[in-house]
């Protein structure tokens, strides 16, 4: 009898192994584990099958927020103790993520995976992605029932309107910012652009910006008059363009967020202004990288918000700057934008989550937020606090009152939020950069950018059933 090759597995053995494996799978599949916070449990609760919870049951609020240890320390020392005093049976599980894209990924995965957080901190333009998918909870009824301190007249106008989608309140404003001119005092003195007190003379018009930027530039010392804010062709590039577009009297997108409309004489005015400055050597062009460009004194005039001041003094303890509202073209407009707090519809403790949201909107916590992070908060009763009357870290020109004055300008526009915002921004930003690098004309750039961005927008709206 021929010996069987010992390396071969017999058919019988193979079938036995498959049978055992299949049985194991069946046994595992027949015993699903009940998971706290799962959608199944919510359904069971709604159908009356779950037991009645105990009176002192601890309610866990899962909070997904942004950035690092300093925020975690702030919450643990200043926010949560006060929140627990009001709600002793609540517990907040906080997960802070160090970058916006990673935070977005975590929110998406948790929500799509059936385990949405109760509350998130998010960029304003995250909101439409979630609201059109029915993931984010509308807040009008909650506010009416539980939060009288959250009222339209308490907030900066565009910060309030930015929280709405299809006329409904879908998020609460956490913090806001808008971009306005900053000036390097030392470079302004060197260029002779100061008044009798030695303070920089702020440009009143675009022509003043052009004149000053040309006087400030010093190629031999790698100094530019001004620079594009984030020339990577990303969302910030488009946001910066939107600031200039608003001053030129134009709009980025229509009011229904259905069609981009920046390929206009106003859009051309704004983009041509940038390109001409770059041609003069007065504006740092894209592709030229200068680390620490602001605190190391490589730019005379730039557009920023007070939230960035902490980096200036960290990187150069002797750095001094001043600020002013935007120069006039047809308006002195800026774009009001900021972070949102959102409540997720399918979260387990939605009511408790709203309590946490509403707690952030109290004047005391709003002010604590602003002080801790050196940021502008959107409530009028907070903006009048003594904290905002003092110059930042003793820098005479770094006063919050300028940002407040900018927030009240009639030409301001809210940050548009709509599905496909990020994707269309990349298309627009890429064309703007090509124009700035003079590879195409501003007319070509705007034409191509609007076409591509509208294609992306239409596709996003179709996919999400917005139309």
């Amino acid at each position, binding site marked *: 009898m021929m010996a069987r090759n010992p390396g071969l597995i017999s058919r019988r053995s193979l079938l036995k192994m498959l049978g055992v494996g299949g049985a194991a799978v069946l046994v595992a599949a027949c015993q699903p584990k009940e998971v706290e916070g799962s959608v199944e449990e919510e359904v069971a609760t709604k159908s009356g099958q779950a037991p009645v919870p105990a009176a002192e049951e601890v309610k866990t609020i899962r909070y997904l927020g942004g950035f690092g240890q300093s925020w975690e320390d702030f919450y643990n020392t200043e926010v949560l103790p006060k929140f627990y005093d009001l709600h002793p049976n609540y517990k907040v599980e906080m997960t802070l993520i160090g970058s916006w894209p990673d935070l977005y990924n975590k929110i998406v995965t*948790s929500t799509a995976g059936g385990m949405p957080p109760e509350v998130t901190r998010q960029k304003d333009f995250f909101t439409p992605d979630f609201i059109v998918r029915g993931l984010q909870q509308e807040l009008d009824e909650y506010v009416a029932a539980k939060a009288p301190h959250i009222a339209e007249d308490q907030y900066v106008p565009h910060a309030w309107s930015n929280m709405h989608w299809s006329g409904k309140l879908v998020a609460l404003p956490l913090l806001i910012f808008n971009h306005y001119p900053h000036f390097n005092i030392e470079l302004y003195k060197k260029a002779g652009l100061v008044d009798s007190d030695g303070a920089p003379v702020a440009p009143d018009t675009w022509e003043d910006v052009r004149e000053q930027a040309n006087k400030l530039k010093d190629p031999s010392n790698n100094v530019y008059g001004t620079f594009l804010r984030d020339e990577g062709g990303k969302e910030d590039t488009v946001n910066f363009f939107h600031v200039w577009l608003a001053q030129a009297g134009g709009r980025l997108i229509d009011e229904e967020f259905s069609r981009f409309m920046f390929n206009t004489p106003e859009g051309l005015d704004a983009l041509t202004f940038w390109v001409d400055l770059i041609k003069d050597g007065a504006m740092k062009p894209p592709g030229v990288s200068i680390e620490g460009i602001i605190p190391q004194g490589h730019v005379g005039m730039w557009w920023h918000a007070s939230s960035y001041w902490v980096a200036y003094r960290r990187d150069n303890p002797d750095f001094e700057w001043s600020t002013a509202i935007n120069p006039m073209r047809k308006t002195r407009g800026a774009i009001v934008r900021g972070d949102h707090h959102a409540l997720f519809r399918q979260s387990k403790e939605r009511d408790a989550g709203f309590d946490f949201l509403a707690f952030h909107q109290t004047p005391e916590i709003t002010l604590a937020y602003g002080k801790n992070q050196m940021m502008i908060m959107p409530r009028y009763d907070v903006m009048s606090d003594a904290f905002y009357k003092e110059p930042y870290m003793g820098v005479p020109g770094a006063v919050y009152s300028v940002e407040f004055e900018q927030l009240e300008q009639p030409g301001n526009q809210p940050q548009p939020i709509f599905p496909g915002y990020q994707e269309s921004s990349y298309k627009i930003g890429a064309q703007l950069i090509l124009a700035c690098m003079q590879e195409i004309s501003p007319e070509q750039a705007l034409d191509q950018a609007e076409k591509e961005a509208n294609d992306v927008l239409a596709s996003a709206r179709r996919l999400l059933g917005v139309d």
Partner: protein
Amino acid sequence: MDINHRNGTVPRRLVGRIKGMVFRSHLMHSMIFAVALLGALVFIIPFAWTVTTSLKPDAQVMIFPPKWIPSPIQWRNYYDALVRLPFDRFFLNTAIVTLTSLVGDVIVNAVVAYGFARMDFPGREPLFYVLLATMMLPSQVTMIPVFIIFRKLGWIDTFYPLIVPSYFGNAFYIFLLRQFFRTIPDDLEHAARIDGANQARILWSVILPLSGPAIATVAVFSFMFHWQDFFRPLIYINSTHLRTISLGLQLFKTGYGGTVYNQMMAATVVCTLPSLILFFATQRYFISGIVMTGMKN
């Protein structure tokens, strides 16, 4: 000098040719060395910048052009970085995940690879191709279904999603080990069978001892992957006390310009050290790839 090869010496024309060959060889080696040195510099500059930034005071971090030698050298950044955040906890968490995953990767993949390399069963080749095909699936495609599986198991915010998948095979490691196992002569296996060894005994006593370089390669790759893994801990871990070092490093970011780069770089250097040490300690071992045989040809 006039030399004649018939007397045991080499003709002049051959001397010239040999000298030319030696010169060209030296020139070639020098050029290769120069190119390799240039490449090494290009790769080492980012790490060098990380190290120098970790020693800089705040005001020198963003200076342009960069100051390669900080003055003063601020060693305190290392202490501040590692004390500011619970990096002892992060290191422990990462070590737990990495070492347990490494054991799984080595043992399980070796067993599976042995089956594909040495055992003949119906459908072996098609099954192997299916296994290879799974390498084509981007992780983004499976991210949410896998999350749902772990959610239903109650494993979110635990180490299980980071460790358990290592005990269910990895297509790349299986492929790598299978290819190595196939280079081991069958005669060794037949000899072991004659001595009464079964499959498990052959794997343990014959195949694995001869597979040191391949096992070391899998171990190094597994260690480096799990040590540096960011995306899976991001998705599955919520609690601070369960964070790994990759998530811990993110806590240095404060948003809107407040990131403390020098401390972040200091922590990065410390966290990179285990991978560096492991690589330099084992590179000769897994590059060598020599199979020993006990049979005469």
